[in-house]
């Protein structure tokens, strides 16, 4: 009886060791840590990020790449499609939580800023901006909020498989990184 147990113990121990040996063999391609991130090129702004995250307020927030923004007077991420006036009245705006702030710069340009405490990551503005604007608004998982779950709940249900693992040293995916070499 004892010997059977010993034998099994050695067997199990060996089985436990095997993955390490295997991993040691494939050493090269291993990065230290991987984080979850949304690939904005794949994202279709379905709005599931808002509710799928394990956190009470999703770790997904809208971010604004100012360098790509047209500073439009009639921002299609800010105003909803059927707005009648270009003012700040609620019925004309797209954001459900009033998280986009607008600031006058010079005629006819406006700066749009995301108030992250109010942003719920629903992606409505992103959809508007992508449809009629430059696409300078896009959704990203904020790494300081994200809990790095082993299986991201958003990745699980994302219809376009846009939530991917990225190496920890490149925690964000901006739309089409520059392919410029100087």
């Amino acid at each position, binding site marked *: 009886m004892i010997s059977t147990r010993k034998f099994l113990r050695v067997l199990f121990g060996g089985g436990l060791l095997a993955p390490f040996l295997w991993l040691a063999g494939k050493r090269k391609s291993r990065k230290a840590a991987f984080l979850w991130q949304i690939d904005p090129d794949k994202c279709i702004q379905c709005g599931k990020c808002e509710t799928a995250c394990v956190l*009470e307020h999703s770790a997904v927030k809208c971010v604004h790449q100012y360098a790509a923004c047209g500073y439009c007077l009639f921002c299609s991420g800010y105003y909803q499609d059927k707005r009648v006036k270009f003012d700040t009245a609620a019925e004309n705006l797209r954001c459900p939580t009033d998280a986009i702030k607008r600031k006058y710069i010079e005629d006819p340009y406006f700066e749009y800023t995301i108030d992250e405490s109010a942003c719920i990551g629903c992606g409505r503005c992103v959809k508007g901006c992508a449809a009629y604007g430059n696409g300078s608004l896009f959704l990203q998982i904020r790494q300081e909020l994200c809990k790095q779950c082993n299986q991201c709940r958003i990745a699980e249900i994302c219809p376009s498989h846009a939530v991917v693992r990225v190496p920890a040293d490149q925690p964000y995916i901006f739309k089409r990184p520059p392919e410029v070499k100087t």
Partner: protein
Amino acid sequence: MKNHAMRSTFRFLQRVVVIFLICLGLHMLHDAVRSDQVLTAGHEQLELLKQQDMSNPKLAALAREMDFIYRSTYFQTHDKRRFGLRLLGVGLLALCILLGAERFFLPPELAVPKGSSPERDSGGLIATTICGVVGLLVVLIVLSNNVHKSSLPTLFTNDKYQSKEDGSLSSATQPPASVAQPPATVTQPPASVAQPPALADALEAETRQWPQFRGSLLPNRNALPANWRFREKWKTAIASPGFNSPVVWDGKIFLTGADEKARTLYCYDVQTGKEKWRVVCDTAPRIPKASEDTGLAPPTVCADAERVYAIFGTGEMVCCSHAGETVWRKQLPFPDINYGYASSPLLLGDRLIVQYDLNEVQTLYAFNVLNGETLWEKKRDAAPSWSSPVAWVANGKAIVFTAGCKTAEAYNAQTGESLWRQECMGGEVATSGSVRDGIFYFSNTGAFTGAFSATDGKILFKNEDTPAPDVASAVLYNDLYILFTSGGSVLGIDAKDGKELFEENFDNGFYASPVAVGGKIIAANLDGDLLLLSATREKLIVEAKYSMKTKLFAVPALSGGNVIVRTGANDLICLEAEP
């Protein structure tokens, strides 16, 4: 006895906490389900309302009110949930401490073996239940009244919803926007954006550069090299293959290369040959099959003073600034065409003309150079072709000439309107036409050799006897139209009536299109000879020859008295005249 009193106190407290936890848990469950329903329904209603006519002040007021309620409910719900969970956590912690403390301070109660009847203090149960329920009620009252209001974000101040104007945006700067206005009107670029220069100026500027396939649309004014004895100024290997020709603008050479992994637009410095930047396209959903001598990068790029435009055999288009920043990208429909897509785009000031003739559909596109938007597209019945468009520009208007395997056609570059159409072609058309003084000249073997009037498409002459080129496009030179065939014959025909005037034969054929610059013709052949030619009505004169010892497929470019050559070995070489 003291122990007993302590134990019953512990037990009592534990019970209170447990009952509190259970009630809180159930309440939160109920609340979670209900508030989710309320929020979803509320939001749907609001969205529906927003789709209504918002110029109606009553509806607008209703929308504002609903919006406010929705937002407050949203944040209240979330804060309440968060608070409830904290409370749950605290309760659990309290229970743990109570359970732990009991064991820690008191000796464990002797467990009673099975069979003997345990003593139970059943009276305590009722008391604890009452305590728990009362405690829970207190907590619920606290929850629903105070907590979330104090922790609400400050954005719920009502003045936000008074439709105030911000900045200097006064009503005067607002265009009268009607409800029926489609969203597309918003996408018009602001008028203050620097528009591309007028067409005539743009074409004039091009003649001093080398901006597209076969130089510039108008006769090129670049200086020829001081003599035809060259030395290599620099030589750079191009990273990926391509049969397109280099173009030059203000000291930058642009060309493309492509393989199945990536399509790349390269920029080199004309002085040093160093690569300045590259832009990669690798987003084509499918890679078409292209024959080996076509590849995936046959179209030559176009450049203007601001940007450079490239199209690949995969239908990918990219526009970059001269600094290498991507300005726009585009994916045209999958290019299903024998051999592979090969037509080079034509730049006409503010628009880029792309002849996209595939096996099934043939389309002529005009794209806005600023953002790649389609200005117009014309589906036509022209049979597939590999030819590039040319244009005749007069009085600020441009007529685009396209040659296909079935028809020669002309379009208004402004509107895309078809001007005329001649069903006179045949075979497989790969060469491109030439234009001068309102006449389009064209020659392709098996198709047509002759000339059309630009405005009405009248066939001015037709030559059905002379052998004609099938790769290199013929060149206009003085009053001659000179054809360079892939068999090595060079034929001069009269540009007025199409009569054959002379024929010369070279040992090897021509794939690179010849260009006429500064009263001479520059031609490159498959022997690797870079030829400087001139011609009279009687004969072709080889003025000078420089041997490169590698096949030449690309049109050489002129820049600052130097010749830029892309060789068959996919090297980029700058040839400098010897002093």
